[in-house]
């Protein structure tokens, strides 16, 4: 089985979010970038397939050279090879088109992408690549088994979960649950050394137009101080929620 894991290069959860150039660009100054958490669960599940069922695992990212350390980390975790599509990730649709070209060229059986990235939160890339490559698609996937060309997945739905069957080629939007957080892997020294020798192919992008354009960013207005209510005066809390906040 040939597996492609899509890796987003995103600011660490604890990063301060600031903007530059008249609030049109994300300020990367001092920001630590990591593998998107939802992608990390998918990468670890891909490692499981590799070790238990003999799959090959390629990781891919759309981005400039600055994203290569994130791909190298994925190689250090155990991916066999990496591909970087050498263009800025301008919008979800454009990223999906670039990834679909990689998928078509590589003939992958299973594509694992995180259900959404923690920067733009669009949640659109997995479904779009499924649509563009005419593959089956399971979103919010929390369990995946593959036998031959058949797959059984569990996906989270509002208020519960659903078990589905489908077949390869398959794209999943993965998340926590694909593997437990305690099973996520930290690259060890051997993995880091081996990653240096693994192939990282840079491919040039196909021509696309952006379906959407980011005009500018805004930050929420600063929040006022919390209003503390005494535990002995909960009538006051009910009153505030009813008359001031108007939420009950």
């Amino acid at each position, binding site marked *: 089985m040939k597996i492609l894991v899509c890796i987003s290069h995103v600011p660490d959860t604890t990063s301060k979010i600031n903007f530059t150039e008249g609030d049109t660009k994300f300020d990367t100054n001092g920001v630590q970038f990591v593998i998107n958490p939802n992608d990390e669960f998918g990468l670890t599940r891909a490692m499981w397939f590799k070790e238990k069922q003999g799959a090959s695992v390629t990781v891919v990212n759309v981005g400039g050279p600055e994203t290569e350390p994130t791909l190298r980390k994925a190689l250090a975790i155990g991916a066999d090879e990496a591909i970087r599509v050498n263009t800025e990730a301008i919008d979800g649709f454009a990223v999906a088109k670039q990834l679909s070209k990689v998928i078509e060229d590589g003939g992958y059986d299973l594509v694992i992408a995180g259900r959404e990235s923690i920067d733009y939160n669009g949640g659109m890339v997995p479904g779009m690549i499924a649509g563009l490559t005419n593959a089956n698609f399971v979103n919010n996937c929390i369990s995946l088994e593959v036998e031959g060309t058949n797959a059984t997945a569990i996906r989270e739905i509002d208020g*519960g979960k659903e078990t589905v069957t489908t077949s390869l080629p398959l794209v999943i939007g993965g998340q926590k649950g694909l593997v437990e957080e305690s099973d996520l892997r930290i690259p060890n020294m051997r993995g880091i050394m081996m990653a240096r020798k693994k192939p990282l192919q840079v491919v040039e992008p196909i021509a696309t137009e952006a379906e959407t354009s980011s005009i500018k960013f805004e930050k929420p207005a600063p929040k006022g101080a919390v209003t503390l209510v005494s535990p002995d005066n909960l009538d006051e809390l009910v009153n505030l929620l009813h008359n001031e906040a108007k939420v009950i």
Partner: protein
Amino acid sequence: MSVLVYTESEQGKFKKVALEVASYAKAVANQLGTTVTAVTINASDASILGNYGVDKVLNVTNEQLDAFNAKAYADVIKQAAEKEDAKVVIVSSSADSKYLAPLLAVGLHAGYATNVIEAPSSTSPFTVKRTAFTNKAFNITTINTDVKLVAVSNNSFGLVENSGSASAEDFAPAIPEFGVHVQSVDKASDKVSIADAEIVVSAGRGLKGPENWGMIEELADVLGAATACSKPVSDLGWRPHSEHVGQTGKPVAANLYIAIGISGAIQHLAGINASKVKVVINTDPEAPFFKAADYGVVGDAFEVVPALIEKLKAFKAQQ
């Protein structure tokens, strides 16, 4: 050329988000000087949509579509959009809509903006405000394509009643091969889901054990709220993962979020930032959550929550 809105239903009944996206579609249609067409799938009575600005309803009735299927539903909505020559298509941010919408965007060659929180500031260029960086910022986005697809963030626009009435038309689209087949669904049907809830009552490790969740459920019952939990609680298996709120769990955009015994780790706050009013109950006055909260009670959950339940029951009885 109308604005098309997909109005979701469950067991024939419209979800609250369906009425919210209908309200949003009406606002967009007013800006464009056009009408709103809704597409429904196996909904029992679509007349209510007229109260939220819908002019025409395309009713799809098909047993094959009883269980949600993203590919088939996307294809049905695509056919409805083409029939109506819709240039703007609106969906919600429910798990189902976010599942089908990327497929629909590909099918319609439509630029797609997600997590949109306001009516467009301009329709030419079509410009919307959406949340980004897990609700730590907003992004102003234009959609450049002929057909535009917008996913409205839940509880962001609200319900806007209109006095209109909707005409109804049966619509029988072609149904594609499914590709993905539902084998079983495990869902608590009597509970309010986090995605649909206006109020969410959430609890953390401060509750000390799963046996203490009775009072959380009772508080949620009194408020008509959904229950949720922090990540450690779901990791410990005290509550199901589907209740885990946060960056790797579910996002919550409720009108009221009550956090009980949750310290407020940054990953948890990322998941609840979009909620409008936050109440924190915690014994530790230094808990980071107090900085993010609107109202706070420094106190023992085992004393505060039962007392709050009694106060709320008395308040409800007076209403």
